[in-house]
């Protein structure tokens, strides 16, 4: 029972709702589920609007499009996962974009070097993951130490390291894309758990990519590419970590009242260092997966995703002032952005409108978050950081 209050804020309010008027109850309920409702309504809208605007030749809810959306959210979601933990403690990690870039470059270099040195493909790819994680975690460690021990604001520290990491990533990649990776890498980044060929002569094949051409190839859908599967594992692990373990409980406690956490004997400094390492590590996985997907390492891959990932976290209901948020919220936030982007493209809307819509959703999300205090009649907590 107890953990639900943390894992699922809705039931906490339900417990309190005995004391509330029906109107307050409805308001609270709406403010809790709006992200899900918004996602559902948006999908519904595109399902109706996309065929209408294209004269029925294109549909939104196809297997192929759903897989495109899943592939698209992988990097944004991974950057947002560690960030979720960081923001719950009222911190911020601005370095995740360039850390992803660095990890992409490092993993490409490591795969190429170890493979050329005679290592078989799989161990070479594992070496790539290890290099990505080690490089990223090192940056996270530096972030965490300077923030926790030297008491420099997280915004400044991670801004600084993002510039440093950017320079290192460009230097390591010699300002070009790291290519020359073994061809087999492509399969790790693009093959999938299952392949479905619809229509006559079709069928389903697991793990093995069917060798087909022409008409059959056009009708083949790739279900759950490996990067999506791996991201799903990372998401499941992050949920477990945040909602079921002492690490997660301490994360909430530090965000709720850092003084209380210190007095309760929680090793706050060490915890903060671990959080920034975690944030860097999930970004490192994002860089590694992008290297697999493109069979190349690139220093420009991560930075454009930084703000999208923070937007996903905020849309998902993580408060910048700390203390609240969930992993599933961030997943929904990333999905909302990806569905919006994909849907607008299919509607042939000018790509720049995406930014305008996403930006509006971010601000509305925070407004709805704040309205909860208004509904509950709680005094406002002052200016939000």
């Amino acid at each position, binding site marked *: 029972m107890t953990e639900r209050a943390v894992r699922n804020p809705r039931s*906490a309010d339900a417990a309190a709702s005995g004391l509330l008027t029906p109107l307050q109850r409805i308001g609270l309920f709406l403010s809790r589920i709006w992200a899900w409702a918004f996602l559902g309504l948006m999908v519904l809208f595109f399902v109706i609007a996309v065929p209408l605007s294209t004269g029925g030749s294109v549909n939104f809810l196809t297997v192929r499009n759903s897989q495109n959306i899943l592939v698209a959210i992988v990097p944004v979601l991974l950057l947002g996962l560690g960030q979720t933990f960081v923001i719950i403690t009222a911190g911020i990690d601005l370095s995740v974009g360039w850390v992803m870039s660095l990890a992409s470059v490092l993993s490409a270099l490591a795969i190429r070097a170890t493979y050329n040195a005679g290592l078989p493909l799989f161990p070479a790819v594992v070496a790539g993951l290890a290099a990505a994680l080690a490089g990223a975690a090192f940056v996270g460690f530096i972030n965490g130490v300077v923030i926790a021990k030297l008491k420099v604001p997280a915004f400044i520290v991670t801004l600084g390291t993002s510039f440093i990491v950017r320079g290192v990533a460009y230097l390591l990649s010699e300002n070009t894309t790291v290519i020359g990776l073994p061809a087999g890498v492509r399969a790790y980044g693009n093959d999938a758990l299952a392949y479905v060929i619809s229509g006559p002569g079709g069928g389903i094949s697991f793990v093995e990519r069917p060798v087909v051409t022409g008409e059959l190839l056009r009708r083949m859908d790739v279900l759950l590419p490996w990067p999506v599967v791996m991201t799903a594992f990372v998401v499941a692990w992050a949920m477990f970590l945040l909602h079921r373990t002492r690490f997660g409980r301490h994360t909430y406690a530090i965000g709720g009242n850092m003084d209380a956490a210190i007095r309760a004997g929680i090793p706050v400094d060490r915890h903060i260092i671990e959080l920034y390492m975690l944030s860097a590590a999930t970004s490192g996985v994002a860089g590694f997966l992008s290297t697999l997907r493109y069979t190349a390492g690139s220093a420009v891959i991560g930075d454009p995703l930084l703000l999208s990932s923070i937007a996903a976290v905020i849309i998902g209901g993580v408060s910048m002032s700390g203390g609240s948020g969930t992993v599933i919220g961030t997943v929904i936030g990333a999905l909302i952005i990806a569905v919006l982007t994909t849907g607008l493209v299919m509607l042939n809307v000018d790509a720049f409108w995406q930014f305008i819509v996403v930006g509006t959703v971010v601000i509305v999300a925070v407004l709805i978050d704040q309205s909860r205090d208004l509904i509950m009649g709680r005094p406002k907590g002052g200016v939000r950081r």
Partner: protein
Amino acid sequence: MTEPILSVRGLTKIFGGLVAVDKVSFDVRPGEVVGLLGDNGAGKSTLIKCISGVHRPEEGEIRFDGEAALFASPMEARRVGIETIYQDLALANNLDVGANIFLGREARRRRLGGLVQTLDDKFMLKESRETLDSLQIRFPSLTEPIQNLSGGQRQAVAIARAVYWEAKLMIMDEPTNNLGVPEQHKVLELIRTLRERRVPVILITHILPDAFAVTDRVIVMHRGRKVAEKATAGTTAEELVQYMVGARDDSAA
């Protein structure tokens, strides 16, 4: 007479040129509620902070449970069983009652043959409920974030936490401040419950009715010095006020 659990001798704390606490001595015995009275700036809080490990006194001796007790940090003081409940409560408002009672000392369960450890929320909820029941504290729900609780209820959570972890001495700094009248009564009721359980309490207050309601003995401070120590039953509000404003002074005699 039982051995004192806390024994303070000649405690002195100096800030710059100001003698904040001047050669104060007193004892606290098990099952006793001692009121620490005094006006603002009389040195009550400084004295308490010396005992709970926040400040290091310049001179004097503190013995707790028979051992010399000069703590380097509040954590050390807590480890031996001195719990201080400050006005800001040191609770995480975004967590529920159980999570707060077990804050920093969460109960865990081994899973998958000891491979991973998860929070044992069921156990923490059960223990919290039992502790609250034993203190006759009732909440509508134990699984909501405590920010939805009133000030008095949160005070009760802080007290329950100290009780659950078997505090040997409870120091409460102005616990009825910022509370409504019914809430004040509840907190005082809780202090009486603590006395029944033989948990000694030092109650810092400047509210005389509170002191008369629950204390066995009162110590009055004025300008850093202990100016009076009286059995509560043997004194009057009038007399205590005279000590508090410095019109009377037993230590000078």
